[in-house]
Each structure stands twice: as structure tokens, then as C-alpha cells.
């Protein structure tokens, strides 16, 4: 049978995944701290139809090899900065530069996020800094950030130190937000809900120390998604055309098979 039928089918399948990725990016164009994903492809095995034959210095020097199409190899994230937007909310934080906030899930697993739209979760006399989903935000000592009743004017400086005024108007230090980074952020696993988890490919988390930190924490700002709508639209068009052209290749192969069939009426 014609190999090209299957080859072109792999092309269509890959472009389908490409479109899936692109449409997920477009759907998240307004998600805080969302990072664009990109599908990458690799070519499939090549089969030698005719082997190189250089015996007696005769014969073709080049193998006759036909490829079998394409397959997706990876989806990588683009960790370029999204734009910062002002929110006027004391508990909104953006990281200007590299890094992640560290949060704790109810099942004691650690996750990372760049979405700094935090809230307060009240428990009796005190409140804890949590994400929108209610997950605890870590401080530098891997503990919760506690804000006691009556405290106001919560302030976070660029290095992540949190201060607030207590009932007497005294400024109290509440610890420092835990900011971590990875050697290869592209290797992080996306968990949904703006959360990432560590993998072998990302490397282990390392703390961004206050005295040598290049990134800045910016209060009352949020990081928008870094999806470039124009870029995604262009990618979508190319993917659609690539899908189309592969379907044409299937059509052509089919027509050729039809011709071969009609040799014998």
C-alpha cells in the first residue's frame, strides 16, 4: 500500500495536537500568570528501501530512505514575563522576573505558582494567606503566613518581606514570602489551577535569597498571561494550513490508489 497515506495521517494528527495547544493558550489569554505552551515535533523513523552499496566502488553512495511522518515530541512552556496590571488590592502580588510562589495543597503536596492573587482565610482569631483556591502560601521557613485579628495595612516589599500594623499601630514583621526558582522551569509539570509541580527535568527548587535576588515582588499588581494573541492566531493559521495540506496528501494518495485499482477494469 502507499506509505504516504499513513505518513500524511501522522501529519494531520500532529497538527491536531498543535491546534489543541494553541486553543488552550487562547482560552487562557486572561488567566493570571499563565505561560504560553508550544508543541514541538520530531520526524519518525526512516526505512531504507535500497541500501548503500559501495562495494567495488560501484552503486549508489546514498541510501534510499523514506520517512514515516511526524510525531509530537514535547510541549514546552514559554516562561517569558507577562505584563503587570495594577489591581489596588493589598493581597495581589506579581513577580517581576523569574521565580514562583510556593503553596501547600491539602494533601501536603507542594506546588508552585506565579498567580499571586492571594486571599485571607479566617480561622478564629487569625487569618492565613492562601491562594484563590484556599491553598496555604509558604513563608521562607516553610510555614504559613499568619495575620492576627485587628492587623491592617499589610505591606510587602520588593524582596518579599511582609509587614503589618497591629492594633496599637506598631509595625510587625510577618516573615518573608517563599520565592523559589528552578534550573529548567520548562520542565515543570502543569497541574492546572495555575499550579506547577517539580519534576526531574525541572531540577529541584532553590530559594531566591533576599540578598541576591534579581526578581522583585510587586504588591497590588498581578501578572497577566503572556499569551500573544496575534502570535497564536498566526500559529493557528499555519497549523490549519498544515492540517489541510496533509489532508490533500491523503487525497492525492487515495486518488493514486484509485488509479492503480482502475488499471484492471
Amino acid at each position, binding site marked *: 500500500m502507499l506509505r504516504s497515506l499513513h505518513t500524511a495521517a501522522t501529519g494531520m494528527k500532529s*497538527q491536531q495536537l498543535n491546534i489543541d495547544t494553541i486553543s488552550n493558550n487562547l482560552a487562557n489569554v486572561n488567566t493570571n500568570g499563565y505561560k504560553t505552551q508550544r508543541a514541538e*515535533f*520530531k520526524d519518525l523513523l526512516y526505512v531504507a528501501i535500497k541500501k548503500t552499496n559501495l562495494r567495488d*566502488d560501484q552503486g*549508489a553512495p546514498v*541510501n534510499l530512505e523514506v520517512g514515516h511522518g511526524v510525531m509530537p515530541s514535547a510541549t*514546552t*512552556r514559554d516562561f517569558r514575563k507577562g505584563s503587570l496590571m495594577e489591581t489596588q488590592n493589598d493581597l495581589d502580588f506579581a513577580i517581576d522576573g523569574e521565580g514562583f510562589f510556593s503553596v501547600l495543597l491539602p494533601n501536603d503536596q507542594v506546588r508552585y505558582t506565579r498567580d499571586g492573587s492571594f486571599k485571607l482565610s479566617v480561622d478564629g482569631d487569625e487569618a492565613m494567606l492562601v491562594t484563590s483556591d484556599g491553598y496555604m502560601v509558604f513563608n521562607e521557613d516553610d510555614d504559613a503566613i499568619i495575620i492576627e485579628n485587628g492587623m491592617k495595612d499589610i505591606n510587602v516589599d520588593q524582596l518579599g518581606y511582609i509587614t503589618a500594623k497591629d492594633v496599637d499601630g506598631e509595625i510587625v514583621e510577618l516573615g518573608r514570602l517563599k520565592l523559589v526558582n528552578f534550573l529548567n522551569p520548562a520542565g515543570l509539570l502543569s497541574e492546572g489551577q495555575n499550579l506547577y509541580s517539580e519534576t526531574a527535568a525541572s531540577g529541584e527548587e532553590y530559594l531566591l535569597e533576599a540578598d541576591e535576588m534579581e526578581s522583585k515582588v510587586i504588591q497590588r499588581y498581578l501578572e497577566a498571561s503572556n499569551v500573544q494573541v496575534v502570535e497564536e492566531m498566526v500559529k493557528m493559521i499555519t497549523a490549519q494550513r498544515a492540517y489541510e*495540506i496533509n489532508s490533500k496528501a491523503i487525497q492525492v494518495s487515495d486518488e493514486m490508489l484509485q488509479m492503480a485499482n482502475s488499471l484492471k477494469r
Partner: protein
Amino acid sequence: MNNSMYIAASGLLANQKNIEVISNNLSNVNTTGFKKDMAILESFPEVLLSKINDRIDMDNHRAFRGVNVERDGDIFTLTIDSGYFKVSTPAGVGNSRSLRFIVDDNGYLKTFYKNTEDELKADGENYVLGKNGPIRVEDRNIEIDYRGNVISGGQIIDNLITFPPFNVIGTTSGGVRFDKIATDFTPGVITETGNKLDFALQGDGFFKVQTPNGIAYTRDGSFTLNANRGLVTNEGYAVLGQNGPIVLSSNDFEIGENGDIIVGGQVENSLDIVRIDNKEYLRKQGNNLYRTVDNVQAEEAFFDGQLLSGYLETSNVNTIKEMVSMITAQRSYESNQKVIKAQDELLEKVVNELGRV
């Protein structure tokens, strides 16, 4: 039974393979660093066609008017009116009325091809035959006279022309076959990705990758890190540096345009990027990797291009061109099919109508 049927069938088969190559190019239109393939078709050797059991027609033999010799640098182009030149091909001896050859490094007269650098190559090509087999000369500076004599160092070494018997009326070929696939190494477009561990090569070069089956080459620089902080491809194969596989010991590293990996102001390792001078021996392995054919060593040379971090090279497939080749291949398939059908109809007439009693 009937020559034209088999010739057209060889055309069908060749076009089928051509479509397979084209559709592989099309499916890889979005593959990082992909280089497109081109199918090269080759005619079967021209064999002499002779009459049997017929009156010998002397008129068929044109008078010998000599050989027309043109020389362009190392390339000789000969044409002749009567008689034939012979070349030895893997599929048998071929006869033709024109001949293009060069003298190869061993002194043999051979047909040739041009590699991607426009150099003349004769490896694996056909030998030009003289009266006593392949012609070999000591001195590359040869002359061909109008009688087809090969003159080297003032002496006639051999003669290129073969006069066929009188019953020969011409040549015929067995059709066409798929000869080889050449890879077009022109660069693709470079696009920004923003990922520090994505690399694109500007210029003629390859990254070296350690695979379980030995060293492979790639232009796909979408690298990542493994658990030991080693730089690896998406398949997990180690990317080689000049001092062994690359390990990023610190989080704070910089990558220079020449591939140097700088940690704390010190060059720790350098990406091993090479130019390959005998690219015609590179074979695709899948997974965006290339390897040289067995028994051939890659001729590695200094890479004088630029390494771009945060960029990737796209595939160099031009969809318009591929589309056109696809249409051409399909139409050519169609016409070959028509030839077979026409031949079949003729046969039908012969068998069913002529034979009616």
C-alpha cells in the same frame, strides 16, 4: 511480453515513492530543524535494440562524423552521431550517444554528481568503459580527440566509441527507477521561543548528541535538563560539549555565541558544534537526528556560524513547492497509468479481435 507496459509500471512505482517522500516532507512542516528530502529518479541503462531475422539495412548506419568534445574545467561532455559510448552501471552496461564524465581521484573516468557545496563527486558513480573495461589514466590532464581516443601524456590509452553490429537500430531503456534521496540542508526560519535552553544554529553546523547507538547530529536545539542537571534532547540523549556531555552545575550560567558555557565568568564547557563537510553521507534516523552511513566517518570541521539561545530553527519545507511536486507526481502517475491502460486495450484487440476465426 510488452516493453511499454513494464516501462510505465516502473514509472508508477517511482512516482509512488516520490509521493511518499513528499508526504513525509509535508507532515514535517512544523518539525523543529527538519530538512526536506528530494527524490532523485534515474533511468535504467540504455540497452541496444536490434532487429533479428531481418534484412540488414545499411542506411541505418550514419557516416562517422567524429566526436564532439566540450570541456568545462574538469567536466568532459562528448556527443556522437554514430556509434555509442558505454558506461558500466550497477544494472548493467548502458549505451548512449552522449557522455559526461570527470577523472576521479584514482584516475578512473567516471560519471559524477554535484554535492551540496557544488563540488564534483564521483563516488558510487558509473565507470566509463573503453575497449578493455574501465579506463584509468595516470595523469588527470587528459585529452579526447575526434576519434574518441583518450590521450594521456601524449599517448593513446583507450578508445571510447563502440560501433554496434549492423542490425542494431537504436537504444531502449527499461524505464525509470528511484535512485537516491538527497536532503536539502538550506536553513529554516529562526523563531524566538524565550526559553534559555532552546538553541538555533545560524550557519552551517550540527549539535552532537550521544545516543545509545553512538554519536548523532541534529539541528534541533530544543534541549532540556535531566535529573543530573545534564543538558539533553527531548528524547533524553546527552548533548555533547568539547569536554564531554554538558552538565550545568550552577543555575547562573550564560551561553556565548560560539557555544561557550560560562559559569561565574569561567568557561566551563563548550557546546560541540561542528560543520560536516561530507553531508551527502548523513542519514536521517528519526527523532530529528542524523548519523553518517556505516563505514563512513563524518568529516567534522570548525563551525563558524552563530549559536542563538532562546531561538529554534523551523523546518525548511516550502509547502508551495511540495504542493507543486505533489501535483506533478500525481499527474505523472496518472499518465503512466494511462499508458498501461492503452497498452492493455491494444493487447485486448490483438488477443480478442485479431484472433477471431
